[in-house]
């Protein structure tokens, strides 16, 4: 189901359909988070991604009025599509080889890790994340707040209409 959604993002010609396929994939990943006892991240995933980011995508699509189908038949650059498929297969091969070869190291290291292990409880999960984020990584957490402020200011600055841009209806195009 996740893969169906992911492929739908790529092959759907209509951006709205692609965004809805993305929702399918994001919900599937949230389900996988729950299956791995990362309940807090699953909730955050649904709220932030499916709730905020995809809605932002849809809002921009509707705002720009670009929800017409894109022509996927024509290849914009010569041979680009075949090259992309080759790159994809190569990337998948490299990643798969890395996973298959690296699992041995992970298994050996996890022998003592499971003993310490994450407690399989939602409250304990949230407590552990809070300890980690606000304890060990508190500097990074503060930096994310700076990043968010920068993003908000930059967005307002970018999407703001300058006073000189406001022109009468009969005005010339800027």
């Amino acid at each position: 189901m996740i893969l169906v959604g992911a492929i739908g993002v790529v092959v759907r010609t209509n951006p709205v359909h692609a965004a809805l396929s993305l929702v399918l994939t994001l919900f599937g990943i949230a389900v996988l988070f729950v299956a791995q006892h990362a309940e807090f991240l699953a909730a955050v995933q649904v709220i932030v991604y499916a709730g905020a980011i995809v809605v932002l995508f849809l809002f921009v699509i509707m705002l720009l009025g670009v929800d017409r189908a894109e022509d996927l038949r024509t290849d914009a650059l010569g041979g680009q599509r075949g090259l992309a498929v080759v790159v994809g297969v190569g990337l998948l091969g490299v990643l798969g080889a890395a996973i298959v070869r690296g699992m041995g190291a992970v298994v050996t290291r996890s022998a003592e890790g499971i003993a310490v292990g994450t407690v399989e409880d939602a409250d304990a999960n949230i407590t552990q994340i809070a300890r980690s984020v606000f304890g060990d990584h508190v500097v990074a957490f503060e930096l994310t707040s700076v990043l968010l402020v920068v993003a908000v200011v930059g967005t307002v600055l970018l999407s703001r209409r300058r006073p000189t841009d406001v022109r009468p209806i009969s005005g010339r195009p800027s």
Partner: protein
Amino acid sequence: MIGLVVVPTPMWYLLLSALLFTIGAVGVLVRRNPLVMFMCIELMLNAVNLTFVTLGRRLGSIDGQSIVLFVLVVAAAEVVVGLSIIVSIMRRRSGINVDDLAELKG
């Protein structure tokens, strides 16, 4: 269907996230709509998140999940800034094709 029969091991999760990452990368390469390219970047970020959670659980460490939290914040900021750039570009010109945007001059 396989997931219903076989108990999912970390190997399955990692392979699934590798597949997702590959699909996102191919999508960025193939698609010419900047919005859809952003969606494919989101796909790649989610694949990496899944890898973080899987390996963090496998190694018995909570750091993977807190890193995913930071990745979510950075992804949100990136999407907001990128979409505002797209909006401000689209206000000036009507085409929705990254091949037409090869020059910086507005």
